[in-house]
């Protein structure tokens, strides 16, 4: 094995150092300028040359338009430094022979509730929906993320290296999402936050909010839903204006103070009351927090695009978007991605018009398609879901290359999360998040053999032991059983994960 299985390591330091500055609500004043949607990369300067590893001989699917049948991925510390079929391997480089394997970027899911709706489904752990008000932009998924959720391990074993953890969809505005890396052995959100990733705002159209609040304070209809969004964003506009006014006054006051022109009884202006929810929405208006909008129907997505334009914000991605294919042209024009399933349908009225070709039809007209999971089972096989969607498209006569379909679960979700400068493709400069497969990831029979997170091996299928959470510690079957209790080896009934424990 090229590198030992290491827990957390450098990620922790980096994450802790960088997360504070991007954490909403930490700063003492609201943002003054319209920030770019994606913050600057966390590492501005190259670290000193570190250990190099070359993965040699695999089919390298870059998700950046090129596939090398027998390629090389050269990694230094946590970064990819070269990818190609003819990469010079510097002396001292550790060479990993991956001939016959396939390497892809680490998979990225834009839609997960792992950690806020963990397994087991204890009542005590249902932390994804703050069902007290339809507008709760002050709620933050990272404050509820339980790092001992065993679903994190399963996602990593399915090749997922990055996922967005969202509040649920009970509320019109459910709160702030957090982008996490599937770091093993995390003790808190601080170990897993994606360094420098922007936060997201979870919004939900349609049936869920009106079902949850219909017999409470409302909304009770889709009219009420949209009215609720408008009211909230109008408040945000006014809130931002109040702070801008205050800052102008403060600036004037400070100028006078510096010039010694203050009147005798002149006091500095009083700041407006801080409201963490409105501050979140103001950051959405500024483009600093990205909007992720749960919305199924074409008509409602169209209305949301109009509403966003009216208030001057951008919807980064619709989620679920079962009818995205009906407005693929509008989504392309609005540069709004659609995070969709391969084939979920019919569980509610707004999911009735699902088709298998949804992602392919988005691709066909140049919209950004993403396959997301919204499921702790689906997240373990994003590759299979992308495969189904790709083949469905081809069957309908839509050309979809494997590279494009791979982008549905790598580069495109990276863009939707505002981290495409860091992850999502195999290109020099990006984090070395790699998945080694034993066959084409578009085959149902493919296994994830290894997962590298920032160059560190975090999962290896051929090991007896892989990382598991505190929760499962001591709870795995037969782990603490005396000799003779576990199923006999002849039954083929002993799990790999307990081989050591039952010896």
């Amino acid at each position, binding site marked *: 094995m090229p590198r030992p299985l290491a827990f957390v390591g450098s990620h922790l330091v980096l994450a802790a150092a960088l997360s504070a500055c991007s954490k909403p609500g930490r700063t003492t004043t609201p943002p003054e300028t319209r920030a770019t949607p994606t913050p600057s990369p966390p590492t501005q300067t190259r670290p000193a040359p570190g250990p190099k590893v070359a993965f040699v001989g695999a089919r390298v699917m870059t998700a950046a338009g090129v596939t090398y049948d027998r390629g090389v991925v050269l990694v230094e510390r946590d970064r990819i430094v070269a990818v190609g079929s003819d990469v010079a391997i510097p002396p001292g480089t550790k060479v990993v022979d991956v001939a016959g394997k396939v390497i892809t970027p680490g998979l990225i899911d834009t839609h997960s509730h792992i950690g806020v709706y963990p397994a087991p489904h204890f009542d005590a752990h249902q932390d994804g929906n703050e069902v007290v008000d339809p507008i709760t932009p002050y709620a933050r998924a990272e404050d509820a993320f339980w790092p001992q959720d065993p679903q994190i391990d399963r996602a990593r074993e399915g090749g997922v290296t990055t996922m967005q953890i969202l509040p649920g969809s009970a509320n019109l505005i459910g709160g702030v999402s957090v982008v996490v890396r599937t770091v093993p052995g995390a003790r808190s959100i601080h170990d897993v936050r994606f360094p420098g990733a922007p936060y997201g705002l979870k919004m939900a159209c349609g049936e869920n909010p009106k079902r949850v609040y219909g017999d409470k304070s409302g909304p009770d209809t889709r009219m009420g839903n949209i009215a609720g969004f408008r009211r909230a964003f109008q408040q945000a506009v006014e809130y931002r204006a109040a702070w801008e006014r205050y800052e102008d006054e403060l600036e004037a006051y400070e100028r006078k103070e510096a010039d010694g022109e203050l009147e005798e009884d002149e006091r500095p202006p009083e700041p407006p009351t801080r409201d963490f929810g409105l501050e979140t929405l103001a950051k959405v208006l500024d483009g600093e927090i990205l909007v992720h909008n749960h919305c199924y129907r074409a008509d409602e997505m169209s209305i949301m695009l109009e509403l966003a334009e009216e208030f001057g914000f951008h919807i980064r991605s619709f989620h679920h978007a079962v009818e995205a294919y009906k407005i693929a042209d509008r989504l392309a024009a609005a540069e709004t991605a659609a995070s969709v399933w391969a084939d979920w349908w019919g569980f*509610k009225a707004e999911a009735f018009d699902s*088709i298998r070709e949804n992602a392919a039809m988005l691709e066909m007209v140049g919209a950004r398609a993403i396959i997301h999971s919204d499921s702790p089972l689906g997240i373990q096989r994003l590759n299979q879901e992308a495969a189904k969607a790709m083949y469905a498209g081809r069957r309908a006569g839509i050309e979809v290359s494997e590279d494009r379909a791979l982008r549905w679960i790598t580069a495109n979700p990276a863009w939707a999360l505002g981290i495409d400068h860091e992850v999502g493709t195999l290109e020099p400069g990006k984090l070395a998040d790699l998945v080694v497969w034993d066959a084409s990831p578009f085959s*149902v029979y493919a296994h994830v053999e290894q997962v590298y997170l920032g160059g560190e091996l975090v999962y290896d299928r051929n090991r007896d032991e892989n990382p598991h959470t505190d929760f499962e510690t001591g709870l795995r*079957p037969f782990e603490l059983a005396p000799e003779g209790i576990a199923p006999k080896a002849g039954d083929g009934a002993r799990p790999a994960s307990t081989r050591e424990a039952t010896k």
Partner: protein
Amino acid sequence: MIRRRTLLWGAALSAIGSVRGAHAAAPSRRRPRDLPFDWDGPRVAIVGGKVLVGDGTVVEGGTVELRGARIVRVGTGAPQAGADLVVDASGKVVTPGFIAAQSQVGLVEIEAERSTRDLGRDDEHPIRAAYDVAPAVHAGSSLVPVTAVEGVTTTVTVPRGGVIAGQGAVLDMVAWDHRGIVGRPRVVMVGSLGRAYAGSRAATLALVRRTLEDARFYLANRRAYDRRALRDLAAAPADLAALGPVLAGRMPLALSAHRASDILAAIELGRAFGLRVVVVGGAQAWQVADALAEAKVPVVLQPSHNLPGSIDHLGATMENAARLHAAGVEIGIAVLDEGHNVRNVTQEAGIAVAAGLPYDAAIRAMSGGLARIYGIDDAWGTLAEGKVANVAVWPDDPLELSSWPEAVFVHGRALPMESRQTRLRDRYLSRLRPGER
């Protein structure tokens, strides 16, 4: 009417001759019970394909001949019955239409819409054995073509709710065939162990035992009951009477159970009452695989389910199917508690194969083996003479994600390879790129 059909069937058979090549599958020895399908009808020959019979055997370059709603021959060589339609399956794979077990197809259109849902009795009493899903089935459901065009031609559609939810039926996916969609009603009794009743698994088991005892008692003392000379019983007389075939060992009792203790209890129930128990779900089944194998209790499971969603699911693994099979347990593969996406049962089978289940066992677990579990193998499950003509022709491996059937026959009829979903697709394909289609 029935006799005339039988005679015609016999005549057809003798005219054709029953050719069993060296590779031909052994046909079922049991005569199918009467089924509401046409015996006459067009003759279809599917020739040249790799025929996965559904019982583990493979016929290379096989010939599958259909007449009306029946399969009349599986073997090799030229069609012997003459054919109105010849399907060239050279280089392709021919399978029985797969079976979606424990499904809700036919009972639900939109899960969250009450008015479109007929999933079972929702009264207070936990014992609903007399409930029979067959009259609730809607042949015009959009789920029927959506399921069928993906090669899943048959479902075992079951009710939900309570401790004993009622009886499931075999459905064949013939859209709008109001008379023919229910291939056979009342094939399985379904129920749940675990904490289904009174918040306690012990109470649930006690209720099931008492119900079975009372059913036996009631069936032996009906007249006393009618005279009001019997003590109070665990359930209504109709529900107790409906358990007769279960107690007689004719109808399987499919019990959802995940924790090993519940699975052992299900095995013990079967032993004590002489039942044909089937375990459904079985997250921890692999932990008691030897007991299941010894008692010959099959398990119908969903291979992808590897999450510890509750304490009952600790140790859930994608290797469940492979481990049970290795221990000698008969398994069925299903997409559980689903209607809309039971079509993904082939993907689930692929997941099981990737986790170590032999390929043939995965195919059987959606066809012949599954039909045996539900006791419907006289008519469904394999490509064999006399069985219902449900057949799918695939470009290659039916478990692979790239593979959709090119042709599907249900009751011997070639289906239009379309569904509401493909119609929606085509409406918008032509809108998004006008002129091209």
